[in-house]
C-alpha cells in the first residue's frame, strides 16, 4: 500500500500526500527518490533540523547524493535572491536577509526564463516536506516552481503552527488540495508508535483524525488514553508533573483542553 504512494510521489507531475505525524513521511520521501526517481530531486523543508533529519535518512539508505538536494525553502530562496537582487526586485541588504521580502522576490525570479532554465537543468522535480507550515508567500513561491517542474507536497493539516500575522498566515489545507489537484495517497502506518511499542495509540489517533479535522473534541471513552481532569488553578503544578513523567515514557500523547489535561 505505502509502496504505491512512494511510486505515485515519484511519478506524479503534481499532487499532495496527507501524512499524519509519525506515519513515515521522511521515509516516504527517501524511498520515493531512492527507488522510483531517476534524476535529481530538489527536496525543500522548513528548518535546518528538518534538513538534517532528511539528510541523515538519505545517507542511511545509501542514496547517491546525485539524486537529491535538500535545502530549506528560505535557504534555497536566499541563495538565489542574493545573487539576483535586481531581477528579483528584492529590497534589502544582500549580506543580511530580510526574510519578509525574500519569498516574493524568489517568486519574481522564478518567472525569469534564465532562472527557470537553471532550475530545470538542476532538478527533475521538487518535493516539499511539512507543507502545512508554508506561509502564503512560500506557497506562492512553490506554485511558481510547479508551473514548470513536477511538484509534490507532503503535510499534515493537523500540525500547522499558528501564523503570527496576516502576511505570515499559513496556507489552509483545502487550498493545498485544490492547487495540487490530485491526492497521491494517505500515509496510514503509525510507524513511530509501533516502533515505540504503543501501536494502539497510533491507530486510535489515525482513526480519530476525521473528528480532529472537523474541529470537534474526540470521544475518549474506550480509547487507549487515560484522562484525568484537573482544575484550571492546578494546571501549572500538574504540567510540571507531566514533564517529569515524560522523561521515562516516550511516545506519549498529551491532549490539552481548556481546563483539562488528558494524559495517555
Amino acid at each position, binding site marked *: 500500500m505505502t509502496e504505491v504512494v512512494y511510486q505515485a510521489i515519484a511519478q506524479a507531475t503534481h499532487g499532495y500526500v496527507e501524512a499524519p505525524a509519525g506515519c513515515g513521511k521522511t521515509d516516504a520521501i527517501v524511498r520515493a527518490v531512492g527507488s522510483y526517481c531517476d534524476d535529481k530531486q530538489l527536496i525543500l523543508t522548513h528548518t535546518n533540523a528538518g534538513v538534517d533529519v532528511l539528510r541523515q535518512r538519505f545517507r542511511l539508505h545509501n542514496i547517491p547524493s546525485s539524486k537529491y538536494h535538500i535545502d530549506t525553502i528560505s535557504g534555497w530562496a536566499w*541563495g538565489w535572491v542574493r545573487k*539576483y537582487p*535586481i*531581477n528579483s526586485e528584492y529590497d534589502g541588504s544582500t549580506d543580511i536577509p530580510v526574510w519578509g521580502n525574500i519569498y516574493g522576490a524568489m517568486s519574481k525570479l522564478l518567472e525569469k526564463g534564465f532562472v527557470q*532554465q*537553471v532550475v530545470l*537543468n*538542476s532538478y527533475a522535480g521538487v518535493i516539499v516536506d511539512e507543507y502545512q507550515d508554508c506561509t502564503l508567500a512560500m506557497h506562492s513561491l512553490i506554485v511558481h516552481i510547479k508551473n514548470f517542474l513536477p511538484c509534490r507536497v507532503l503535510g499534515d493539516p493537523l500540525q500547522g503552527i499558528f501564523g503570527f500575522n496576516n502576511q505570515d498566515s499559513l496556507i489552509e489545507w483545502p487550498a493545498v488540495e485544490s492547487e495540487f489537484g490530485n491526492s497521491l495517497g494517505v500515509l496510514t502506518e503509525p510507524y513511530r508508535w509501533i516502533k515505540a511499542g504503543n501501536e494502539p495509540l497510533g491507530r486510535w489517533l489515525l482513526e480519530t483524525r476525521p473528528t480532529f479535522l472537523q474541529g470537534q473534541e474526540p470521544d475518549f471513552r474506550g480509547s487507549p488514553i487515560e484522562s484525568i481532569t484537573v482544575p484550571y488553578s492546578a494546571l501549572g503544578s500538574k504540567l510540571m508533573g507531566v514533564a517529569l513523567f515524560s522523561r521515562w515514557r516516550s511516545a506519549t500523547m498529551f491532549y490539552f483542553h481548556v481546563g483539562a489535561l488528558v494524559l495517555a
Partner: protein
Amino acid sequence: MRVRHITIKNFRGIKSLSWHVKGDFNCIIGPGDACKTTILTALDYTLSPRSSLVFDDSDFYKQDVDQDILIQVTLTDWDESQPEVKKFFSESKFGTCKCGLDDTGPISEPAPDGRIAISVVLRVDKSLEPKWFAVKGRDEGQGGTAMYASDRAILGANRLDMSSDANFTWGRNTILTRLSWNNQGNLNAVISELARTARQTDVSSYESITACQKIAEDVRLDAQKIGVKLSNLLPKIDIQKQSMNTGAVSLHEDDVPLRSKGSGSKKLVSCAMQMKLHGGKNISLMDEIEVGLEPNRIRGLIFKLKSSGQQVLATTHSPVVIRELNVSDNELYFCKKNADGSISLESLGAIPDIQGHVRMNAEAFLGSKIVACEGPTEIGCLRAYDRFRFDEKNPPVWSLATSYFNCGGGGKVKVITPKIASLGYKTAALCDNDVPDHLTSTDVTNLAAKDISVFQWEAGNSTENQLCDDLPWEHIPALLATICECKAPLEMATVVDLIIKDSGLSNQTFPENISEWPESLALRKAIGDCINKYNYIKRIDLAEKVLAFSLPLIPDAAAMKVTLNELWNWIQND
C-alpha cells in the same frame, strides 16, 4: 558559445583593452607589435581547458608584477539543450553565475530583454599561479566561482594554429580525447595496458585501440569534407614519444604521424575535428589564419568556417583573407596600440561605404599609416620616390608599415581619408591640383583638423604637368622617349604630333628634332597635358618607371621634389 566581450589588463604588451566582439567571424588586422596575437593568447589561456599554464614575470605588462594580470571574457549564445551545457548551468555549477551584457560590457544581472551571458576571469598575481573564476559583471579583483579545466572544456574554445600538434594525440583534454569521451571507458587504463604490451609485441592490431579507431575514421570523413584527402587514418603508438602516457597514442595516416603533415592540412584537419566535437557551437582561435594555405584553400577554409555556425577569432596579414570578409558583418577589426599601452579595436563596419575600398586596397589596411593617393599615377610616383631615397640611413617606406591607398579619383580623397583616419590609421593624402573643386583650401583645412596631412602639387597642375614643369628642359626628349618605350609600339612622332595638335600651336613651326625645341612654359604645359590626356602614365608600373627616370634629374628645389620630400618626412617621422 560566442565570445562577445573581452577585457584585458596588464597582460604582456597590453596595458588595457576592452573589445566588443560583434561578429561570428572576427579577424583582427593591424601593424606588427599591435598585440594582435596577444589578444588570441589571452582568449586561449582564459577559455581553453588547459590545467597547467606557466606564467613568468615577462607575462606582466612592463614586468610590473604588482599589477595583477586580469583577463575577463564574456560569452553568450549557448545551447542549453545540450546535456553537458545543462550540467554546466545547473545550480551546483554555474547556474547562478549567469550575468548580463550591455554596451558598457558585462553587468551583474541580465537586463529585461537583455542578453544573458557568462563571464570567465583568468587572474594571475605575483605568485604566478593562474586562477579561473566565473564572475558576475565587472570583476573587481576578488571573488567568483572557481572554474576548473573540465568546466572550461564546455566553453568550446580551441586554438587552431601552428602550435596545435597536440590535437592529434589522445592526451589530457585534447580534442580526440574529448571526442572519445563517451566510449572512452578508462582511457588511462587502456594506455597503460598498451604500454605494457608494447614492450613485448607489435601493438598495431591490439584490441584496446579499436575504441580510438572509430574516432579516427570519423575524423578522416570530416577532414575530407573540408578539403583534405587523407588515406587510412589510424591510432598508433608514436614511437617518437619517449614515455608512455596518454599522449602516446596519436593519429597516423597509414604510417605517418599526422603531426608531420603540412601546416595547412593540419590546420584544416584540427578545424574539422573541433567542429565535430561541439556540433558547430565551438570557438576557434586562429593566429595568422592564412599561414600554410594557398589562396584557394584560404577561401575554402573561410567559406567552411563561416557556414559551420561556429565563432572564429583570427588574425591575418593576408589581403586574400581581407577580401573574403564582409565589413558590414563586423568581420574585420583594426587593432591599434596607443602610446599609453591601451589597445583599441575598431570594426571597419563602423565606417559607411568602405567595403569597396577595403577589397580594392586590401594591402593598405595591413599597416598603420596610409597615404591616400588620388590614383595610380601618384602611387607610382611615390614608389619611384621611395626607391630614389632609399639608402642605408633611411628605412624604406615598407618597413614603416606605410601603405599606399588608391582613392580612385581626385574628388574622393576628401571623402575617404576621414573614414580611414577615424579607424585609427595615421593618414596623409597626395593629390594633384588641376581641378580646384576636388580639394579646395577649405577642404584642406578641414582635413588638417582631423589630423590628415594633405600634400598637393602647385595650383593648376596635374602630376604630369608638375613633372613637365620641374624636369630640366634638356631632359624632356628623353622623358618622351621613356614613355614611348613603356607604351610601345607608341612612336615619338605620334606623341609630337598630338602635342602640337592639342596645344593649338599647329600654326607655328617646330624643328623636326624635339631636342631643338625652344623652352617655353606653354610648351611644357602642352606636353604635360598630352601625357595626362592620353593616359600615358596612369598605371602604377608606368608612372613608377617614368618617375624613376625623372626624379634623379629634377632639382631638389623644384616643387615636385619639395612636396615629395615633405611627404617622405611625414612617413619617416610623424
